[in-house]
Structure formats: C-alpha cells, structure tokens
C-alpha cells in the first residue's frame, strides 16, 4: 500500500497512516459497521402475510415502522431477563473484584510463600473456555457427581440445590467468579507493583500498619485499574450467554430466555423471527452503549500512554 507511492516524501508520509489503517478499516466496515447497519434496517422490517400465508408470493418483506420495537419493549420476558442479569451481576461483580483485590494485596504482602504457585493457580481459569468451565462446575453442582455433596451426605446433611430456584444465581455467578478473578487479580497486582517502594517506606516511618498501608495507600493508588476492571466486568455481565446456555442441558431451571441475549438467539434461530430479534438486539446495543459512555464520561477520559 504505502510502498507503492514514490517520493515526494511529504506526501507518502501523510498518506502512509491511512495505508496502514486500511485492513482494519475494511474489516471494521464489513464485520462491524455493515452488520450493525443491517440489524438496524431489519429492525424496521417484517413479513407481511397475505391470505393464509401459503404458496409463493403470499409472504413478502415490508416496512414495519416501530412495531418491532413496541413488541420488543413490551415483552415481559425481556424485562425479566434483564432483571435476572442484574441480580446475577450484583452478586458477581462485587465478589469477583473484591476477591481479585484481596488476592492482589495478599500477593503484594511481605513474606508470602508460594507466591508464584498461587498466582498461576488463580490465573489458570482464564485459560479455560467458559463452556468447559460451566460444564465442569455443572457436574460439581450435580449431587450425583459432586464431591461436595458426597461429603455432606456422609455428614448426614443435604447440600443446597444449586441447579434450581434462587440457587441458580449462585451457581452461575460462581462460574464467572471462578473464571474472572485471576485475570482481574493480575491486572490489579500489576498496577500495585508499579507503586514506588519509597511511598511505603515513608508511611512505615510514620508508623502506619500494613493494613493502613493497604487501605490508605495501595487501594487508592490502584483505583484506576479497579475502575477499568469494573468497566470490563460490567460489559461482560450484560453480555452473559455461554454459561447459562451450557448449564441449561443439566437443569430445568434455565429457560431459553434466561438472559436478554439468549432471548435474542431464541427469537432469531429457534423462532426464525430475525426482525424482532434485530429490534431487541438494537435495544440491547443502545443500552450497552449508553451505560458504557456514561460510565467513561463519569470516570473521565484516559490517556493512552503516549506523549502528545
């Protein structure tokens, strides 16, 4: 691209960045912009049926106005799914980030043994696919295959029912906590390590305890990475799909519309109604974008690590 253009140099220099960006721009247009535009278009369309809807030509696609949006927004399943995801997120995000912060602080504490082993073990679940993680935990939740239930049974107790009712939220949140804590821990730990040691020495000279140093110095100084991890966790929570989908075959407690994205999938591929699925997905995308930008605005724009 940029190679083809001969001197004058100034000109190549000005055009070169666009050449470098061309592959990304083409891919973005084809794989992001075009599909989103197409989903927007479909959300205003629907199938019009003439007569009984039998025979060729009796079904034709036409404009639907806002009717798909009206039915998407008034569908109680979308609201219920959103409520379920909010409950799930309210359990998951604080526990996951709390544990990640705790483990990061422990890793950073003095005189810790087996530091490398613990760090790798806690980060390991990141390498395990969400589907496989749900599968493994799914078997651990099943009383017939779980060591936990076996031990409780020996003690004459019965374990909690995790695959039905409210236990389901615990079951799903636990899978995500398990999979996400290590990643967030390493992010927070890395930013803890970048705090200069002099800061602690000054505090110790002033007689601060390790707990005080953790609470008053370390946590405030890693706040930016906590904000970052919170933001990514929030987005991942809103988009939950694989975990409940994978657990579903093991239980009756997860409907095909458990999370909003599962409902979109069902509408599009099980019911074959791509129009209302598109309207719902546009609504979900809009809500995600509003939350994301609102959040970023609140936190303030971040610098990208280069000298302007």
């Amino acid at each position: 691209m940029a190679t083809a253009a001969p001197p004058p140099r100034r000109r190549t220099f000005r055009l070169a960045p666009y050449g470098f960006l061309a592959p990304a721009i083409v891919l973005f247009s084809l794989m992001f912009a075009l599909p989103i535009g197409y989903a927007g278009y479909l959300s205003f369309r629907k199938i019009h049926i003439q007569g009984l809807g039998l025979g060729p030509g009796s079904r034709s696609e036409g404009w639907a106005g806002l009717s798909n949006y009206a039915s998407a927004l008034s569908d109680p399943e979308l609201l219920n799914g959103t409520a379920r995801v909010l409950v799930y997120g309210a359990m998951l995000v604080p526990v996951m980030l709390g544990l990640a912060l705790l483990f990061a602080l422990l890793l950073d504490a003095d005189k810790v043994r087996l530091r490398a082993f613990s760090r790798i073990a806690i980060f390991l679940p990141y390498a395990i696919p969400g589907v496989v993680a749900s599968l493994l935990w799914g078997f651990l939740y099943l009383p017939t295959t779980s060591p936990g239930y076996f031990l409780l049974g020996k003690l004459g107790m019965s374990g909690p029912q995790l695959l039905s009712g409210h236990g389901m939220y615990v079951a799903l949140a636990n899978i995500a906590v398990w999979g996400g804590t290590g990643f967030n821990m390493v992010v927070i730990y890395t930013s803890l390590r970048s705090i200069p040691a002099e800061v602690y020495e000054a505090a110790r000279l002033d007689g601060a305890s390790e707990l005080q140093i953790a609470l008053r110095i370390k946590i405030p100084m890693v706040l930016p990475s906590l904000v970052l991890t919170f933001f990514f966790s929030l987005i991942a929570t809103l988009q939950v799909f694989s975990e409940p989908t994978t657990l579903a075959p093991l239980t009756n407690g997860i409907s095909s519309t458990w999370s909003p994205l599962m409902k979109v999938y069902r509408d599009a591929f099980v019911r074959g109604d791509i129009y209302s699925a598109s309207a719902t997905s546009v609504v979900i995308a809009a809500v995600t974008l509003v939350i994301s930008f609102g959040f970023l605005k609140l936190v303030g724009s971040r610098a990208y690590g280069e000298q302007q």
Partner: protein
Amino acid sequence: MTQDATRVSVPVSGSPLTSRLRRIGWAPTLGLLAGAVYCLIPVVWVLVAATKSSAQLFTSFTLFPGTGLLSNLHDLSAYRNGEFWTWMLNSAFYAGVGALLSAGVSGVTGYALAKYRFAGRNAIFNTLLAGVLMPPVVLAIPQYLLMAKAGLADTYWSVLIPSILSPYGIYLARIYAAGAIPDELLEASRIDGASEWRTFRSVALPMMMPGLVTVFLFQFVAIWNNFLLPFIMLGDDSKFPVTVGLFTLLKQGAAAPALYTLVITGSLISVLPLIALFLSLQRYWRLDLLSGAVKS
C-alpha cells in the same frame, strides 16, 4: 480473611530487623492458597473424573480415581469416527490462523495510531474501540445473515473472518508501539531514505514483537474459547470447534448419560493445549499493558 491477614503482618515497633523476623506471612500465604485450591478444584475434579468409566462416574467417591481413562480415550476417539479430534484440529486452525492475522492487523493499526499524527486519528481509534462494547450476539446475528447472503455461512471463513479484527488487540498494540518505539529511530530510518512501509517492517515491527506475541496469545485464547460465533455460524458438525462440539455432546448426554464420560474426557483434553500455552509463554502475559503502564 483480610482482617487476620493484616493483623498477623502488623510490624512490631522496634528495630526493622526484629520486626521483619517476627512477620511470618502465614496469613496471606494461607489466604492465597485458599484461592488457589478454589481455582484448582474443577481442574482436579476433571482430572479424576476422566479416569472413571461411566459406571464408576455416578457410583464411586468423586475424588477417587477410576480405571477407565484408556477406555474413555478410546471411546472418545471412536465417537463418530474420531469427530472429537476433528473439532480439536478445527479449534487449532481457527485460533492459530485467526490470532496470527489478528496480531498482524493489530500491529499495523496500533503502529499507525501511535506513531503518526493525521486527520481523524482519534475518531478512527474511538470508533474501532467502540467495537469492544458491542454485545457479540448483536453482531453475530446480522453477521450470520450477511454471510448467508454471501454464500459463506457454515464455512471456515464465517468463523475466521469475524475473529480477525480485535479492538482489544489494537488498543494493546497502540500502547505498546507508543511505549516501545522511540520516534528518533523512525526519523533516522526515514532520513536514510527508507519508505514508510520499510521503516515499519525493519525498524518498528521487530521492536513491537513482544507486544504482538501478547496480542496473539490473548486472541488465541479468545478464539479458542469462543462459543457464540461458531455456534451461530456453523451447522455442519465437521467444522465445529471443540467448544461447540462438547456442547452438542453434553446436550445429547442429557438423554444418554453414557456420553457424560466422553464430555468429561473431552473437556480435559480440550483445555490441555491452552494450559500448556499458558504455562510455557508466561512472560508474555503482559497484563500491565491493560492499565497502560509500559516501561520503555
């Protein structure tokens, strides 16, 4: 746990030496070990469960190894003429080729965004980055419909092409390029008469390599672990990656519990390549890039 951890490690006032000797660090160590055990439980369970025959799976104590590992492996390999290994190869193909292309595209894009000043730079960067906020289902359904129109649905391309552009990889590559490549070197190369592309190829790219290995790793894991995109795009079992393959096995297992042992053995094998990659390339898991902290 926090309370205990910190109470024990409170330094005793006095000389720094004695206070250091008194601090044993048992509480934080035990806290971390508890976390490690929690994270390893499912891994240990699957290691043990994979050794059990389907009769043993539901009858013997779950953390007691069985005798069926070899026959499980044999059954898994025999399942529909070795379909499981086809899934593994498919996963390796999608993740390997996809991550390689992704690292390449992220590399040139991040370099251009970090090292050039041009009209629309921030607009382009923010637009590319906004892609990370799009819920995958919202993208995947119209992607599928468009792929179907182009005659590409249910092909290898339909999973590979959407995996190449990674907003996240571009973000990492930009930060890495900004921190690792001094402007003076680029200037020197230009003064020597090298073209912009040659400057990138022979000066910038080698310096960006460690960062691009990181991008490759993240993207490899992301594609290997991806479920939704292939789940939506593919209908033909022989093109499934291992995540979708195992899911279909599990779904059938609800009716035929004998398949559960295959699912469990398959799960174990499916995570081995990732764990190996993960442990062997540890120094490239540069999460500090995430918080924008690169020491140049």
